[in-house]
């Protein structure tokens, strides 16, 4: 069994990375392993478990800022935030249903993998809420970047490069976030029985209306959902505006706060598909107006279950009997529209050697390789995890 280092503090992370450097041993970075199944397979000689780097070092609700160790459990932090009526505005998803994990993971994992939930269309992604980071690069050196304030253009925005870098550039030890008030209440307008292409149009109309839609999803052959959040009188008024706007599309239904919350947590956590563990799961990001077309194209040759989030811009796809040809077909379809597809879950058989991340242009691949090299010249941190970025 390979050795796993579990540092208790930042200095020990430095020592562990320096040891790995000196011994030219690649490390697999882990937190609570909730997303360990995602990403290309790696060959590493040891593990670096960052889950003991816990503790909130700064939480000032009136300043909308929280800083905590990368090993903190997301669920614990969400509870702390909820106590003050706050939350991460990007609605971090819990993939335990899809991935069979026990928890929704750590803060470090949340940032490294960079998955945002339904509110992405209104509040931005993980990247938009990471203000500062302390990390140990693959050079075995501690560095900090960013800060604790929202408005900051001092030097390159490295927190953005670290967000979504899948542990390939640095081991994050402490992360500072922008947090926001939790909406007081919510309601969802449902349109019943729209065809996919009509649903894209309805969501686009809703998102383009002055009613501040905070999420828009479409479940094929069922419902198209648009969520409004805020203070009660405002939500009530906006639901009325939205009804007037969208009534030409079809029959409407309004979901009250509790039902709305339940529905959106299912969408966020992708509990609407993926029960059959052998089926592959894809997460596809495309221009929102292209969503229905992309799915129609894929459905021509592949048997799938799917639903749309982000106003049509995010397709969650479950592929039955996936082969290597399916992956090529999906990626080929997306190449035409712009966007990318990530293979979130697969068995060895269904992955059939397909890349997890969308292959990039040769120039982007070259840049990614150079960036990787600048942070981790010996390639000791999660080497190969994001192969498609040119490692």
């Amino acid at each position, binding site marked *: 069994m390979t050795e796993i280092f579990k540092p208790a503090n930042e200095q*020990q992370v430095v020592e562990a990375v320096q040891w790995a450097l000196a011994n030219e041993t690649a490390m697999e970075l882990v937190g609570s392993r909730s997303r360990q199944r995602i990403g290309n397979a790696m060959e590493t000689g040891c593990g670096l478990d960052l889950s003991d780097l816990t503790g909130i070092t700064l939480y000032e609700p009136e300043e909308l800022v929280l800083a905590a160790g990368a090993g903190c459990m997301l669920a614990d932090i969400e509870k702390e935030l909820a106590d003050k009526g706050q939350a991460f505005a990007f609605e971090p998803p819990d993939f335990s249903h899809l991935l069979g994990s026990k928890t929704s993971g750590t803060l470090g994992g949340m940032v490294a993998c960079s998955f945002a939930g339904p509110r992405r269309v209104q509040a931005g992604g993980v990247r938009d809420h990471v203000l500062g980071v302390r990390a140990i690069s693959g050079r075995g050196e501690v560095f900090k970047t960013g800060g604790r304030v929202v408005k900051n253009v001092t030097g390159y925005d490295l927190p953005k490069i670290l967000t979504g870098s899948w542990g390939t550039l640095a081991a994050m030890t402490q992360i500072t976030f922008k947090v926001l008030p939790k909406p007081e209440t919510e309601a969802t307008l449902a349109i019943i029985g729209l065809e996919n292409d009509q649903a894209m149009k309805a969501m686009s109309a809703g998102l383009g209306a002055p009613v501040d839609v905070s999420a828009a999803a479409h479940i094929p052959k069922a419902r198209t959902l648009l969520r409004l959040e805020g203070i009660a009188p405002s939500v009530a008024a906006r639901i009325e505006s939205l009804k007037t706007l969208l009534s030409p599309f079809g029959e409407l239904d309004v979901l009250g706060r509790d039902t709305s919350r339940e529905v959106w947590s299912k969408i966020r956590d992708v509990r609407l598909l993926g029960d059959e563990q052998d089926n592959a799961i894809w997460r596809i990001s495309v221009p929102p107006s292209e969503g229905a077309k992309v799915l129609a194209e894929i459905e021509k040759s592949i048997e799938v279950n799917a639903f749309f989030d982000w106003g049509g811009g995010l397709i969650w796809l479950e592929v039955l009997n996936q082969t290597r040809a399916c992956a090529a077909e999906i990626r080929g379809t997306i190449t035409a529209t712009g966007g990318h597809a990530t293979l979130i879950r697969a068995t060895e058989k269904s992955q059939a050697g397909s890349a997890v991340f969308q292959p990039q242009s040769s120039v*982007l691949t070259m840049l990614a390789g150079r960036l990787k090299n600048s942070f981790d010249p010996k390639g000791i941190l999660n080497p190969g995890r994001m192969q498609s970025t040119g490692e």
Partner: protein
Amino acid sequence: MTRFATSESMSMSQLELPEVNVATLSNRDRIINDLKAICPGEAVISHDSEMRAFESDGLTAYRQMPLVVVLPETVDQVSQVLKYCHENEVRVVPRGAGTSLSGGALPLQDGVLLGLGKFNKILEVDYDNRCVVAEPGVTNLGISNAVEERGFYYAPDPSSQIACSIGGNIAENSGGVHCLKYGLTTNNVLGLEVVLITGEVVQIGGKHMESEGYDLLGLMTGSEGLLGVVTKVTVRILRKPETARALLIGFPSSEDAGQCVADVISEGIIAAGMEMMDKYAIHAAEDFVQAGYPLDVDALLIVELDGPEVEVDYLIERVSSIAKTNKAVSVAASNNEEERLNFWAGRKAAFPAIGRISPDYYCMDGTIPRHKLPVVLKRMAQMSADYGLRVANVFHAGDGNMHPLILYDANVPGELEKTEEFGGEILKLCVEVGGVLTGEHGVGVEKRDLMPVMFSKTDLEHQQRVKCAFDAKGLLNPGKVFPELYNCAEMGRMHISGGKLPFPDIPRF
């Protein structure tokens, strides 16, 4: 005309720019001819009289004539110019509208000034995907104007929005008064086309959310023209809120105003904008535009709320009552658009208002944790007395970004230098209280030498190596952002020490 290696800089201040490459200067005529072959017609400007317009940007204390100015019209020309400069080791300074307040577009004597002004077209308005594709020379306001007919707008609104270019906004990650609710440039960009110094053209992101792989969109935004030249921008647009109302609130002290802001946020209210002015700024603005500001207060707060009417009306009441519990001495709410704009008129005219009462002023741009405002203002007042220079304060209270304006007279010998020193002290104070050197104006040449106040050598090296990954020869906008030029090969080297595991303390499994 031959140019000499001696600096023609008119800067009155001691600013060190990278050592001039003498070979480049001596090859100037050849370089001009070669650039003319790439960009024919009037695109290459080499006469001093015509180049004069480019010798400075919005930070006018620094001036430097460039080697030559090139104004390409196509992406292919940009690519060829950069490729040429890369092959011939000629430095390049990209420039948008030239409104930078940090000297980001300050020319180099041995550098080609690459102006993107001719890239001034909106390429596509896509309401279905709620985005606009534009060339980098389009003004910030030009984007909002292009989508106004359908009730949309582009959210980041730097005060120079009538003139500043969207490409420059990308380079500086520009903000504005609505950042807390609607984000900075970086939160509103979906895609970029960038030309690297090698001439290669890269497409990053597009109309979809979340670019794949490393977040190069995030990295490029705010990189101050050091990593590449932006030739196309895709930004998201938003539907204008149904209504907007503002409150004008006077406080006996900045502490009370600051506490009011904190309480508003604690109550879960995210205002569209919260702007604070100190007594000096209030008086200057009121004298200038007669906005009806109260003159018997020490701090004035403008709080703007937007959204559906019912929500805005409700929040106006809540914020008013929070203000009253924080000792507000005057609370006025706008009841129509005219009144709202009038509340803003003084704030928007604050800079020219200061300009009216002082021969020169120097605008600073630090960000601090909001609650540190009283202590920062107090120490700034002390410094103001020590330096014998007046200072007026306008403050984006919602996000902690402060703009102290130091009043000086450049014709008084030594006063500019004293002003810069004072400014530097203010920024050091921002960092000391947990803030940063620049919130939205960029580091440029202005704050370059202060970077070590905020970052360790190791921190800076991690940033500089990113520069090396894009521009190993250091040809794009050198002398900006980082206090020292550096050798990429040297910095890339690793010194591995030890070798055996010397730390029995790390738990292992």
